């Protein structure tokens, strides 16, 4: 047993701790009172409290200067709606498009695909000002539809490029066999191509969801209190009387939860894809 072998578990633990510790600490903080958070030296042992969560859920924040009404739960709901809505729209548009790019060779195909990808290259700030003006004119400002539409700039290229790769890797012979059995082009797409690309679709959808969820700038500039997601809503915790770390920590934990649940749910489909790929004649 070489010395490296013995050291390995310790090194791995060290790296793991380095990356996970901040998250771990935030979760701990969400159960601490303000005094516990500021105690010096910081301690892992404390009396846990649910008051931070209670404050968030009820909407009443206790600050030094009195109660502040914060609508964090509504922000959570908005985030869910916007992220889920964007991903669903992107899937409906992107998966068939990815199939078309993968299977059919048509003129300007690569050009169009690249153009769609280029949306990811541009920093959002570049398009924000003109978009703001259009949104006001079209009445899309502060609407769910407007934001979901803008979020396509983030989610659609992702879905397109990841799923296209999966369709390209999938065996065309299997689809050909299904058509020879007598099924139409559409049935083949629905019953064979999509199920076989499921891991790619799941991975792309999950990534797109995360990116949409984390978006800050579009929601800030093109929306207001009605559609505010948690990214913007967290700003409210920075009050004149100071920052309530306990409540922010609780807010953070709540904002991580939906994405975490989704990731755990789709994990099954991601792993499945790896074993299907091992089929060889």
């Amino acid at each position, binding site marked *: 047993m070489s010395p490296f072998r013995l050291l390995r578990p310790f090194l791995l633990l060290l790296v793991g701790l380095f990356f996970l510790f901040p998250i771990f600490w935030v979760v701990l903080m969400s159960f601490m009172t303000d005094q516990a958070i500021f105690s010096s030296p910081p301690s892992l042992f404390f009396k846990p409290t649910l008051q931070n969560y209670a404050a968030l859920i009820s909407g009443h924040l206790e600050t030094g200067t009195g109660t502040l009404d914060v609508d964090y739960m509504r922000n959570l709901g908005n985030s869910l709606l916007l992220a889920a809505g964007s991903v669903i729209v992107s899937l409906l548009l992107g998966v068939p498009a990815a199939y078309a790019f993968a299977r059919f060779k048509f003129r300007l195909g690569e050009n169009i695909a690249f153009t769609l990808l280029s949306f990811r290259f541009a920093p959002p700030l570049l398009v924000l000002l003109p978009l703001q003006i259009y949104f006001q004119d079209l009445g899309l400002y502060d609407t769910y539809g407007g934001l979901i539409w803008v979020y396509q700039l983030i989610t659609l290229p992702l879905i397109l490029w990841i799923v296209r790769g999966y369709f390209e890797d999938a*065996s065309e*012979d*299997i689809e*050909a*066999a*299904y*058509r*020879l*059995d*007598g*099924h*139409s*082009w559409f049935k083949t797409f629905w019953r*064979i191509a999509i*199920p*076989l690309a499921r891991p790619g679709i799941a991975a792309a959808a999950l990534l797109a969801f995360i990116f949409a969820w984390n978006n800050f700038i579009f929601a800030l500039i093109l929306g207001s209190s009605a559609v505010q997601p948690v990214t913007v809503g967290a700003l409210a915790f920075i009050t004149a009387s100071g920052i309530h770390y306990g409540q922010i920590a609780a807010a953070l934990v709540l904002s991580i939860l939906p994405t975490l649940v989704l990731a755990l749910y789709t994990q099954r489909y991601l792993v499945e894809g790896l*074993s*299907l790929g*091992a*089929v*060889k*004649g």
Partner: protein
Amino acid sequence: MAFIELDDIAKSFGSKPALDGVSLAIERGETLAVFGPSGVGKTVLLRLLAGIMEPDRGDIRIGGASLLGVPPERREVAMAFQNFALYPHLTAFENIASPLRARQLDETQMKRRVGEIASLLRIDHVLDHLPRALSNGQKQRTALARSLVRAPAVLLLDDPLRNVDAKLRYEMRLELPRLFKRFGSTALYVTQDYREAMALGDRIAILLDHRLRQLGTPAEIYNHPADQRVARLFGDPPINLLPARVEASGGGATVRLFGQTLALRHRPVPAASGWDCLVGIRPEDVELSSEPIDGTAPFRLRATTPFSVRTALLLAGADGGELIASTTNPPAAETLWARFDLGRAVLFDAATGTAL
């Protein structure tokens, strides 16, 4: 009018040609073996018939009706792929039932037909397995069952036995003709194994250089190959192609091989003197003797290779030329003498490779 007609079919991929003007007429109920080296266009031919690709030029007709522009699901054609192409997320039963579902057969009928074909192909005990739980042989039989279950008029098989172990391949080779006949299908069978082609084909179509080089019964191909490449491809050990010069001599023609001058009876006499050719002699037509034969030089035995019925002997002549002979009773000596029966030999023009 033949049942399947291919009329001057051509197909290229970019600048690379796959088929360059192929015409074929296939009779109903016939099994046509399509034979040729890799890359010559055999698979492309099947895919054109299946409708997975459209030809650049030419016409494809089944029963007199042109199939150009007809999508695969509307052609009455079934196909078994080389790499099986089973649906990995469906059970073997569902795989086989797929063509019947497309025709919206009722459940009971479907179960019955799937059951019949499965028991015929001896996979009825694994019908509820997913493809990844099946052995290669079972996968191949499931793919075959799927193509046979609707008793197709036209059956296309793209080297279906290629990815199966040698042992299983032999067994399947015996079963396939019986299956085709049972369902009355007209079959096109692509293979690179000449034995498969001879065993399964009523006729064999040989593709070389992306074109149809010869079409005939196994006997015609084996005994009268049109091209020296065809002759070499059909036979194991392969035919000897001995370069020699045909000379006119006293009203007939002779050729000199390994120091022997042999008369060519019933052969065309070269107009000018001297005609460079390749004399094709099959190893089994070489007579060996451990006793000297008058007027011939001995051969040295270089290597022996046992086969199932015969043994192949690699012989080296005094001038360095090689000769392969095959015999059921390999002699024990290191030095041998050989006699050739030119009656069964085939002559090829040395420059073009075409048979004379």
